């Protein structure tokens, strides 16, 4: 069984008379340790896909299993518990809590886990070290650069040692140089900590760090070969 399994997933939005179908009967398997990039034109439903995998949105039909747990069946409260322990979410705009320091922001998700204060401290320090911000622990978000804020956001996503980390355009609002640094960081986390990553991006170069490339278009997921080549995308799961 794959780590993440989507079966027959459909999601529609109604806007007045119009019905939008970002996801239509999507099937997808993601193996443990994979680094998957997801591309596609704007408005096709990439964020929507990440949201249903994270359980912050619900599909209309179909099932999602993550590590054997059918997340589509969990209640809202259970889903929250499940996310705290198993899922990391990296936002495009970091979304740090402005009143908390870098340290406190990173500690937030593991406050929800049954860990001792000493254990929490160790994990936060390790996570901040992994993103290279050990010297910024007492800084507030407004005292950090955009790239540093994003790195705190990444530390917050990995601190609970989740099974899966999803990232929605993690480099979308950064300059090229900072974006490169974040790319390297994500790749390292995937390789060294064996974190399974699903990353949405608009940038072919960013997608290049992934080991597998998907394209979402008109409600369907298409496996694309190599990014940057003109290889005809192969249909993945139909």
């Amino acid at each position, binding site marked *: 069984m794959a780590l993440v399994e989507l079966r027959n997933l459909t999601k529609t939005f109604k806007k007045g008379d119009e019905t939008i179908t970002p996801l239509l009967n999507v099937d997808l398997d993601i193996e443990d340790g994979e680094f998957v990039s997801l591309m596609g034109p704007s408005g096709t439903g990439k964020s929507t896909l990440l949201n249903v995998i994270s359980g*912050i949105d619900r599909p209309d039909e179909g099932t999602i299993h993550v590590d054997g747990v059918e997340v589509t069946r969990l209640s*809202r*409260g259970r889903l929250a518990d499940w996310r*705290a322990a198993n899922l990391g979410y990296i936002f495009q705009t970091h979304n740090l809590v*402005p*009143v*908390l320091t870098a340290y*406190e922001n990173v500690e*937030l998700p593991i406050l*929800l886990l049954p860990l001792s204060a000493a254990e929490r401290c160790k994990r936060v320090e390790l996570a901040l070290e992994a993103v290279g911000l050990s010297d910024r622990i007492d800084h507030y978000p407004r005292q950090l650069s955009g790239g540093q804020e994003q790195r705190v956001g990444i530390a917050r996503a990995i601190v609970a040692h989740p099974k899966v980390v999803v990232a929605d355009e993690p480099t979308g609002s950064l300059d090229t140089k900072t974006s490169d640094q974040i790319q390297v960081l994500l790749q390292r986390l995937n390789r060294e900590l064996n974190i399974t990553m699903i990353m949405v991006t608009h940038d072919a170069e960013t997608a290049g760090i992934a080991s597998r490339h998907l394209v979402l278009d008109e409600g369907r997921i298409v496996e694309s070969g190599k990014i940057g080549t003109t290889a005809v995308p192969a249909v993945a799961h139909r």
Partner: protein
Amino acid sequence: MFRFAPYVIKSLWRHRMRSVLTASGTAVAIFVFCCVMSVQEGLERLTSDEDAQRTLIVFQENRFCPTSSRLPEDYAPRIKKVPGVKDVMPVQVWTNNCRASLDIVVFNGTPPRKLQQARDLKLISGNWSEFEDRRDAAVVGRNVAIRRGLKTGDQFSIGDLSVKIAGVFSSSIPAEENLIFTSLEFLQYTRGLDAAGLVTLHEVSLTATADPDAVASAIDAALRAGPVATTTRRKGAFQTSTLSDLVDLIGFAHWLGYACVGLVLALVTTTSLMSVQDRIKEHAVLQTLGVRPARVFRLVIAEGLLLCNAGGIFGVALALAMLSWSGLAVGAEGVTIAFRPSIHLAISGATVTAIVGIVASVLPALQAARTPIVASLREV
């Protein structure tokens, strides 16, 4: 829950101006609430105390102001013969103001020895022997002493009266701490009062088994043949009827107390709601990180509770301090209501604050816990 305490406190601190203003408003309203409640309590005590129920007041029939009630002093032995009467204390009352006033000064002239037997007074300073020996000596209730800044040894003059203060007393009955006691003769012979052989009222204590109302009727019947007809009532009933105008007013003030609670409720709800609406996205982020909706609910409640209590506790403390340092009392026609701080007052103030804090944040907390995560994340 306490793991999130820094987050709650820092969130309040982030908008400190707003938090401080809300807390101040709460403090003022709770302060007023406590003051109003203290008047209520004072009135309650005045009419329902053991003393108010088991003591009778003999007054001249159809007279209401202490200056117009004039009873012969020698009614005392006649009253004492009525079955059920344990003792009688003749009292001459003098007051600087027959109308409702916040700074009423009331003198009660009684035989000094009787006073010590009949009333549960404790001298905080001074001594009884000087009070008994000097004709113009007076003992002053603690509240009057605070309000007027009087000490043992001072000479205190008001109107035609001038007394030497022999002591300051406290009493188990708060309203008595608003009185000044002198000897009966001293007050009777005061210029302008012209009351030799006359007293304002007789205060009657009862035997343990006597029925107060039956004894009251018996006293009036026994004195009907005398030169002046009397009306005898329980002290509680006497005080309520003397203060009847004030009682209505205080009954109304009691709504003012509730209005203050309503004000705090509106104030804290508004602030909580604003704070929640400012942070729709932040709460969605928390939920994305794995915070349960129920915990978001509790976090908002905790913020409201903290905010309300910060102001409320301050308001309660301020009210208690004011009540104990000012010695305020309201009175009319020689009867006074004491505003006293009390444990009960502190507890009810704190409880009301806590309840209001919770109730006020329920709506904002529900809103925070219920907002859909994805839609809120898309907010800018």
